């Protein structure tokens, strides 16, 4: 497995740094993500029922509802704070595998973003990559282990390549959304090697990984919020 596949895009950043994404847009992203997991809670849980323990939807909804409550009650003033609150809230309210994974993802994004109120393309990509490195540190997923990493890694890869080709945020997010969806779909033919689904061995084949499906929603939310940027 080439390193670039493992950690998204690890090449040099030649992408435009003029256009930025604001704190408010990032809040809108999280809000959209929260809406999507709520709307698709049963779908996520049904995927988990097939090869896991039937709680991925409720886990994500519980977490993202808490996140939105937290940042509504005390709106963070920097992007670093925003992502740290998101990460800490997910860690504290989700539990299971997805709590530490999504939690660490956002915590690392927060640390990398720092006390700023906007991120340019390069900065956003670096934050996302740091988040993914956190996921890898926590869960040790490899490509094709049939986990959320199989949606996350291609999404970041596509996002990076697109931004790197001087595409718009909007186009890059769309590329990421599509790559995540393709990655999610590709999990169906895999044997799970991490998480609960791995207990099933061959019987896990033919089912989508629930975490990859929620990750696809994360990039669907990003694409929606950035559309037109």
């Amino acid at each position, binding site marked *: 497995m080439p390193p670039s596949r493992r950690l998204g895009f690890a090449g040099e950043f030649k992408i435009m740094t003029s256009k930025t994404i604001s704190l408010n847009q990032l809040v809108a992203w999280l809000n959209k993500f929260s809406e999507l997991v709520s709307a698709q809670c049963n779908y996520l*849980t049904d995927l988990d*029922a*097939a*090869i*896991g*323990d*039937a*709680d991925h939807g*409720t*886990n994500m909804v*519980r977490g993202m509802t808490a996140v939105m409550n937290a940042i509504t009650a005390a709106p963070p003033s920097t992007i670093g704070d925003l992502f740290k609150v998101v990460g800490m809230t997910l*860690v*504290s*309210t*989700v*539990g*299971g*595998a*997805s*709590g*530490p*994974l999504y939690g660490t993802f956002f915590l690392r994004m927060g640390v990398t973003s720092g006390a700023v109120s906007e991120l340019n393309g390069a900065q956003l990509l670096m934050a996302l990559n740091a988040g993914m490195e956190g996921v890898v540190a*926590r*869960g040790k997923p490899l490509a094709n282990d049939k986990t959320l990493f199989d949606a996350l890694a291609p999404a970041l890869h596509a996002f990076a390549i697109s931004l790197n080709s001087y595409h718009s945020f909007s186009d890059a997010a769309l590329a990421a959304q599509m790559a995540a969806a393709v990655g999610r779909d590709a999990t169906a033919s895999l044997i*799970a*090697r*991490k*998480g*609960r689904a*791995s*207990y*099933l*061995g061959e*019987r896990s084949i033919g089912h989508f990984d629930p975490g990859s499906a929620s990750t696809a929603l994360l990039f669907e939310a990003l694409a929606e919020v950035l559309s037109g940027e």
Partner: protein
Amino acid sequence: MKKLINAPDNLVADALLGLAEATTELRIDHKNRIIYRAEPKQKGRVALISGGGSGHEPLHGGYVGLGMLDAACAGEVFTSPTPDQMLAATKQIDTGAGVLYIVKNYTGDIMNFEMAAELAISVAGINVLSVVTNDDVAVQDSLYTAGRRGVGVTVLLEKIVGAAAEEGQDLSTLSTLARDINNNGRSMGIALTSCTVPAVGKPTFDLPDNEMEIGIGIHGEPGRHRLPLGAAREIAEQLVEPILADFNFTSRPVIVMLNGMGASPLIELYLMYGEVAKILKRSGINVARNLIGNYITALDMAGCSVTLLSVDDQMIKLWDAPVKTLGLRWGI
């Protein structure tokens, strides 16, 4: 879905309220969903924390008390508790001698306990060691999977290591003992019906009337394969044979647990124990102690599991030591 609950989302909180009423020997932190002994352990003794998703009662809250755990963290149904819970419990119960985490091998539990241990050590300066149980022979153990699930051995380990902690053994000795127990225990389970996760409202898997699911865990995960529903004696074979194929239990005495998954009545568990005992006898295995009942369950699943633990004299002595919890009690 037919359950004695108020609302799916309140199940865990409400059950903890009931537990709080049930006994004055437990103290419950409802906000953090932590079950403590009302009377903390004496200073200088290592404290034991376990926890996991709810739905496995009496595990773990029912094993808090003299001779077993010091605290149990309750997650949502079938969902690992969060690091905050373990961290709060760790700070609360450490008497200076350190804390042992007893963790069942599930990715979620591993990661959440790991985060808690990192924080406990780095932020609170508490000495924490973790032991992971992974005794379920239904799952293939390989470098390329999450490994075997932690199931029945967890109960036996909490009892034996709990007794050793009560004796004043130190953290590293306890963690070695705990690892030793885990290495010497194996489990296997079957389901006659799926459980229903309250938040989902329908059975996790469909199981036709004439089939059983072999190799289930304790979360309503589908097992490894299905077979036509068999007689008790065939089910006993399905449970015991994979265990004996995986580990040699003839060299030392064993503790046997015949565990119900939650909805199988005791009369059936007694009967199953008889069938299991027959196979053990025939295989030259010497049963030193046993447990028959609902000790580590999967909500309202019908079915059962067998756990064998190969023990030495010291473990038997610790097994026999007094225990006073809701789930296990003797000698006091």
